[in-house]
Every structure is written in structure tokens, then in C-alpha cells.
């Protein structure tokens, strides 16, 4: 290649680029670019199922959060004249009352609050643990990786419910916070594996090496370059963990090893209602439906987020 040829090539390439831009302007097209976050947001907003689910979820969460103002009755106070009332609009017992006259709409609201509260703690705790363990394993590799991942495998092979029962029996069940932390310490394995994989592949990327050559420390590389690029999968996983935690907490409370009365968690309400399923059918049904609704909506939102963060799925 002579210098002259090279210069000519330069000019041709520049002219071509300019021509493309000019023709775009002529056609009235605006060349607009979006960041990855903007793209993800746009894709998420176009995901109808996820958006509908998100609206429903927000309504349910707000209702639970402001249960004190919305609930027509106290969750523990019996409305004695209206014992064993089926769902009715007259006495504002929308979900009916139990044998001693407690209003089940109010109890379900407060129960949702407890369950959602527990689920968010579980998601936070497990996300923090999962990111740390997965990140350390993926970034440092070698023996540390081996050790941490075998530990993760161990956690995955232990039967979940059995260890939960043992732990809560051992530590004493009861307060929602304690149940949440027990669950959080068992829920991180999936995320740890995902984060490890992401770190493993990002660690080898040239932009990470470039940062190293510029003199960046390990912690700067991890927090400034690798972690921001793994946020997508982490957010999706945290969302799905909320749904899973609500279900497991309900199961645990139903079995009597989770949240204990007087805290009205949804699982506790179902357990209370099961004795009279044939006569007072509404007692177990409405808290049950609430669980299904929440879990379903969160899963749809999680799917929507996953699609949004997937660069292979384009904006329609």
C-alpha cells in the first residue's frame, strides 16, 4: 500500500459515510441512538403482559402498604355478630369472616404486607450473597472458584424444604424477619452461578484488560467495569426470587414453620382456613388466590425484564 493509495481510500470512505448521512437527512430520517438502558426500557414498556402485571402488582403492593388505611377492620379484632359470614358487600366483609368473626379482607391485606415484606428481604439478602460469591468465584477463578462453586453445589443438593424445616425448628420460627433471613441464606445459589458465568466471560474482555493496563485496581474493575455489565441478569433474578420467596414462605407458614400467628402471613391464613374448607370455603380461597396473583404477575414482569435485557430481541 502506498501512501497515495491510502489517502485516496481515506477520502472515498469519508465521502461514503457523508453520503449515507446526507441521504438519511433527505428522507427526513433522524439518526437517533439509544443507550442500552433506554433500549431495555423501551422494550419492557412494549411488553404488554409484563406491563399489565406490573400495574396489578403495584396496586396490590400499594394496598398492602397502606393496609392500615384501606382495611375496613382490624386484622385481629372479631366482628362477633357477623361470625362465619360469607363474602358480602353489606358489612364490608368482601372476603368473608371466620368462626370468631375476624374480617378476612383485612387479614388478607395485612397478610400480603407480611409476605411481600418477607419476600423483599429474601430477594435482597440472597442477591447480595449471590453476587458476592458468584463475583469472587468468577473474577478470581482457580482454587477459590472451585471451592465456592462446590459449596454452591452442596447448597443446591440439600433438599430445600427439609433444611428449612430443620432450621426454623432449630432457630425457633416466628418473626417474619427471622424467616426472611433463613430463606435469604438459602436462595442465593442460582444467582451465584449466573453471576459467576458473567464475571468469567467479562473478565476476559479486552475492555477489562485495557482498564488493567491503565492501572485500575481489582475493586475498580469489578465495581466499575464488570458489575454494571451484569446488572441485567441480576435484576431479572432478583425479581423472580421475590415470587419464589412468596411461595416458599407461604408453604413454610402453612406447615407451621414460617411466620407464626399473630402475624397474618398469607400462608398462615390458608392454614387457618383449611380445617373448614368445606363449610367456610372463602377462608383459604382468597389468600390462596392472592398468592397466585402475586406470583404470576412477578413472573410475567421477570419474563418481560429478561426479554428487555436480551440484546437479541429487537424492538418491534
Amino acid at each position, binding site marked *: 500500500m502506498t501512501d497515495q493509495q491510502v489517502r485516496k481510500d481515506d477520502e472515498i470512505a469519508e465521502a461514503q459515510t457523508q453520503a449515507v448521512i446526507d441521504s438519511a437527512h433527505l428522507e427526513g430520517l433522524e439518526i437517533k441512538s439509544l443507550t442500552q438502558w433506554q433500549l431495555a426500557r423501551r422494550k419492557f414498556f412494549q411488553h404488554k403482559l409484563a406491563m399489565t402485571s406490573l400495574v396489578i402488582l403495584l396496586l396490590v403492593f400499594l394496598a398492602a402498604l397502606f393496609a392500615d388505611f384501606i382495611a375496613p377492620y382490624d386484622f385481629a379484632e372479631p366482628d362477633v355478630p357477623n361470625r362465619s359470614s360469607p363474602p358480602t358487600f353489606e358489612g364490608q366483609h368482601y372476603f368473608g369472616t371466620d368462626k370468631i368473626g375476624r374480617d378476612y379482607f383485612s387479614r388478607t391485606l395485612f397478610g400480603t404486607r407480611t409476605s411481600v415484606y418477607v419476600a423483599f428481604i429474601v430477594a435482597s439478602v440472597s442477591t447480595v450473597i449471590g453476587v458476592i460469591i458468584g463475583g469472587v468465584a468468577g473474577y478470581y477463578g482457580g482454587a477459590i472458584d472451585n471451592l465456592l462453586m462446590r459449596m454452591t453445589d452442596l447448597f443446591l443438593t440439600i433438599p430445600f424444604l427439609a433444611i428449612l424445616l430443620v432450621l426454623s425448628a432449630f432457630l425457633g420460627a416466628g418473626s417474619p424477619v427471622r424467616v426472611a433471613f433463613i430463606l435469604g441464606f438459602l436462595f442465593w445459589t442460582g444467582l451465584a452461578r449466573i453471576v459467576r458465568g458473567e464475571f468469567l466471560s467479562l473478565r476476559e474482555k479486552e475492555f477489562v484488560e485495557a482498564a488493567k493496563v*491503565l*492501572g485500575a485496581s481489582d475493586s475498580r474493575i469489578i465495581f466499575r467495569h464488570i458489575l454494571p455489565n451484569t446488572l441485567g441478569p441480576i435484576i431479572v433474578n432478583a425479581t423472580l426470587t421475590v415470587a419464589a420467596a412468596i411461595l416458599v414462605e407461604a408453604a413454610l407458614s402453612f406447615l407451621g414453620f414460617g411466620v407464626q400467628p399473630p402475624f397474618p402471613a398469607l400462608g398462615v391464613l390458608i392454614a387457618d382456613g383449611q380445617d373448614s374448607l368445606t363449610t367456610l370455603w372463602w377462608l383459604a380461597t382468597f389468600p390462596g388466590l392472592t398468592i397466585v396473583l402475586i406470583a404470576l404477575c412477578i413472573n410475567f414482569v421477570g419474563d418481560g425484564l429478561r426479554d428487555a435485557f436480551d440484546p437479541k430481541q429487537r424492538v418491534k
Partner: protein
Amino acid sequence: MAENLVEMRELVKQFPVKSGLLQREVATVNAVAGVDLDVKRGETLGLVGESGCGKTTLGRMLVRLLEPTSGTINFDGQDVTHLSDRELKPFRKRVQIIFQDPYSSLDPRAQVGESIAEGLRLHGIGDKDERRERVTDMLELVGLKADHVGRYPHEFSGGQRQRIGIARALILKPDLVVADEPVSALDVSVQAQVLNLLKELQDELDLTLMFIAHNLGVVEHISNRVAVMYLGRIVELTDRDTLYANPLHPYTEALLSAIPIPDPDRSRDRHILQGEIPSPLNPPSGCHFHPRCPIARQGLCDVEDPRLMEGPDEVDHLAACWLRAGDRAVAGV
């Protein structure tokens, strides 16, 4: 000031091959197997070889992304072979690298300005305004616009991204830049632009450049001296004009004959090499090139391992070939 900015001696990099449940080490790959190479101040040293010959590993050791297994690297009088990350910090300011892949070499979630300014921030150079000014100056120097600072990498073409990568490497005003196949992922027309840019910047900023490529045509355009690498070793080293006019090593001849001539009426004698590049896991005996060499002599080349030896011509011309360089070849034995 010494003439050589970098002196590499007996440099070796081995990678372990692990296998099985316990990840036992079953073998080692000699990616770089004993390299002696100097880089002179202000020159462009081209490093050529086919893929897998260890040229990238050599470049990465030179910027200390990899720690050599043995041998020494001397940079401006200081032994940097085994320095720790902390001790390397002053060195990091003076030695930078430009990568091959313009797509994976920029952080997709960082604005271009942030990526370029990172070196300044890490070395505590300037306040925010000064850094911003230097970044915009640098962007203009590499042929981009100052208002590109706030954009993200995916908004740029491959050639533009490579310019950003160059800006990031040059912002600290390094003495030495290792360019690891900086144009092989680009279109031919864009290749020329980026090569010219590198050449201009080198004059302007007084850079020493080690330019790695698998293509002798690209290297010819930019280098003062050229080193040819084969299976972890340098097999020929001389100035550009001598190498292209009068190659000594049969491997260099084969590489040269593979450069396409942009003229359909001309044809050239092509030395097409037989066979594949041997595995560095199990290199051939004697001269590593002898199984593919058209002139190999039995009983010599497959037994004795040639080192770099002075060729018969007047100029500084080293080749690792028993038949073309060294006392025996000169004497015509």
C-alpha cells in the same frame, strides 16, 4: 539515554494444560519459548507471524498483562518482569496497548469520554475540567469530534471504535504502545485510515510502537524493523527494506510470497507451505520449522536447534536458520 527502550531476554511464557476432576497439570504449552528482542526508542517494530505463534502473548507480557514464566523484561533501565500490581503503577503510565477487537475493547456501559479519561483519573492527573479538555483534545487528535464524549460505544463504527481505543491508550502520553493487530478486524479502507493515524500520532507524540500483525503487507507500511515469529520464537529480525528485499529465513520467504499483488497480470512464485503449524504442546525437534521447510537438510535441521545468527549481508540481519545465516552458512558448508 540508552538506545533501547525495551530489552527482552530469554523470555518464556508457559501455560499449563489442566485436565480431569482435580485439574492436574498434564502438560505445558510454550507460547513464547525464549525470545530475545529489543525495541529501540522512537522506532516501530513490526512483529509478524501466523496465529498461535505467540506474538500476542509476547505483547501481553510486554505490557505486563501476563507475568513471564522466566527471562527478563527491562523497560528503560528498570526490570519490570515480576513487579506487583502496586509496583507497576508508574510503568502503567508509560506503556499502553491497543487491542485487536474494537467491539470488546470498549466498556459497553461507559460513555466514550469516561473510557478515555479513565487513565487520567487513575493516575490522578488534572481536575475534572482539565481532564475533560484533554479528552476532547485527544478525540480531535484521533479524528473524532469533541461532542462524541457523551456517546456510548455501540453508536460508533468499528473504525471509530478503534480510534477511541487509540485515544484511550494515548491519553497518558505513554512512551511505548503495543498495538496488537489493531487493524485486522477492520475493512481494508478503514485499515488504511487507522494505520495512517497511528503513523501520524507516532511522529506527533514521539511514540515507540510495537506493531503486531499476521500480515506482512500491513507491517511494511508502518515498520522500521520487522521481527518474524514462528512457534514461540523469533526466526528473523532486520530492518524493513532488507527483510522485504532479501529475506533469509525460508518461513519469511513463504510469508512474503503470500502477500497479494494488486495486479491480475502479474504472478509470483508462491511458496506454499506444506502442513499445519505444529502444536506448541509438542514442538518438532531441532529447528521448529524443519518439517515444513523446503530447504531443510536432514541430520542438521531436524537435530540441532538454530538460534538467531548474523546473516551474510552487510546490514544488521539476524535469522535462525542453519543454511542461511551464521558462520557455517556464510562459509558455504
